């Protein structure tokens, strides 16, 4: 039996080596080459000594943080209310539905909505406020990014809440806890894993959004993703692009570590 199971594992191992480990190793390897082709730490030195990249990193982290926070604030109540509804699978499907549409198409739809002659500005004109500059603002960028990430936040939270045993909530009420106490002492801690997963799946991609920064942000928001795109496609400085990639991967590992489950040592008795 044991022999067979090892045999069945081979395709997965090959898959992992080819598509997970090899690319990571390649990125790390590339990051040591300068634009001239010499092997050195120069790219990392540039990264950590140039104000441009550090500012870009801070920018990216800040925007990713705002996007994640906004998504969380919207998603948690949504997931909670969804669980109370009768046809929750249907509602869930409706929330997931937009993820089937290509990201670019959604971005273009938002351009139509936000533009000078778009739906929102028509409405603002109608109620007498007059047209506003909506596109190419930080707010519109954060809103659209949050819109795109929301399903990825709702799903894990929804699942966590669905798994919650309702008798625990009843018990908490029976013991005289207020609604807020029930939420903060029982519901939230028990669904924290869903929240953590949601944050992971939203924060990391948000760090390196690049199409949206151009289409919605008009390149007025510059994230690390923009720099990677530029280094690979325009400058063809693959080394520097990889260096930024490595920094992003390390950031990802860090976030996984902070938000991930830690085995409790000793365990509570």
């Amino acid at each position: 039996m044991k022999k067979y199971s090892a045999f069945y594992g081979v395709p997965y191992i090959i898959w992992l080596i080819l598509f997970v480990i090899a690319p990571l190793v390649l990125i790390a390897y590339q990051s040591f080459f300068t634009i001239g082709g010499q092997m050195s730490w120069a790219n990392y030195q540039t990264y950590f000594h140039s104000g441009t990249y550090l500012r870009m990193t801070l920018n990216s982290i800040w925007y990713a943080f705002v996007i994640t926070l906004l998504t969380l604030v919207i998603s948690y109540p949504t997931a909670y209310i969804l669980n109370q509804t009768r046809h929750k699978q249907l509602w869930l499907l409706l929330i997931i539905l937009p993820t089937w549409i290509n990201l670019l198409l959604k971005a273009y739809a938002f351009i139509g909505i936000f533009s000078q002659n778009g739906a929102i500005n028509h409405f603002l004109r109608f109620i007498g406020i007059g047209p506003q500059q909506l596109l190419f603002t930080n707010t519109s960028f954060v809103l659209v990014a949050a819109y795109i990430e929301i399903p990825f936040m709702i799903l894990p939270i929804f699942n966590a809440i669905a798994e919650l045993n309702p008798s625990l909530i009843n018990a908490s009420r029976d013991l005289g806890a207020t609604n807020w106490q029930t939420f903060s002492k029982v519901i939230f801690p028990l669904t924290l894993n869903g929240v953590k997963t949601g944050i992971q799946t939203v924060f990391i991609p948000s760090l390196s959004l690049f199409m949206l920064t151009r289409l919605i942000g008009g390149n007025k928001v510059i994230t690390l993703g923009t720099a990677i795109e530029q280094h690979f496609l325009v400058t063809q400085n693959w080394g520097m692009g990889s260096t930024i990639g490595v920094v992003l991967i390390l950031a990802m590992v860090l976030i996984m570590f902070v938000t991930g489950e830690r085995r409790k040592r000793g365990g509570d008795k």
Partner: protein
Amino acid sequence: MKRLISFALAILAVCALLVLGSSQLRAANGVKADHKLTLYNWGDYIDPALLKKFQKETGYQVQIETFDSNEAMFTKIKQGGTNYDLAVPSDYMIQKMRRAHLLKPIDHKRLQGLQQLNPRFLNQSFDRGNHYSLPYFWGTLGIVYNDQMIASQAIQHWQDLWSPKLRNQLMLVDSARDIMGMALITQGKSVNTTNQADLEQAKKKLQRLMPNVKAIVADEIKMYMAQNEAAAAVTWSGEAAEMMANNKHLHYVVPSEGSNLWFDNFVIPKTAKHYQAIYAFLNFMLKPENAAQNAAYVGYATPNQGAQHLLPASISNDHQFYPNDKVLARLQVYADLGQKMIGVYNDKFLEFKMYPR
């Protein structure tokens, strides 16, 4: 488990049917396996009606694959695994591809109608003698403005873009060479400068432009300008032509102090296989009537003299797109500066984009 297997089988069956269907469709279109030509082109950069005509005349079917930047194209051809027969890179990229040994020479003896091409656009610095490339379209970098938002005399030169009147009203094309080049020209420098001090000055100059910059975008500029989203934009002539077709209030101006003159040329990448089809296609595109039809569709300027005569006078006499000799003489062509220098240009451009406003 049983359901899972039947589900998987159903998907496989559907896939098999689709493959069969598409190959049937292709056979029905009369495509023989080796009777084709793969053209690697910019998006929407050839009149589809011409491809049908070409297939009718010669029997070769043209497959088009598209790229959106010279660099992406370069990477793809260099990495191999592709089978492009013809590609359409721009000037400096031709030089770079030649240096990287990615191009096959063009046999002039197999070409008919080479004399149709305006000698002005041949024998350029990036390919002396045109051994590797034939001009397909050419154009300029310039300013598009909306006459409802800004008076035409207020925007004739690059320097006018820095005017406080254009506050938050200017769109720039997201291209390091072009925007840095524009700043260099305002300072009387060459667009191919490798002098660090000049580049630093150009970056500083651009940073002063930032309050006017509404967005730094790519293809979307066409849509935004046509929808009156901004008063002015820095972009290429062909893009401008397309915008102007959609909005009567837009005009294009090539600043008389100079600008960039660029070329998109046909080249034969080293991956080419179907040489018969390649030369049939090049000769087909050299014919004035075809080149004229294509120029009318695409909107860029054709280097084909015969075609220029066939175009309506309203197009071929339009100084916005066919500038007079005096302006033409001041235009500069980009040279391949080598990767390191391009890196410097891009870093400066990135620093400009990062500049707070």
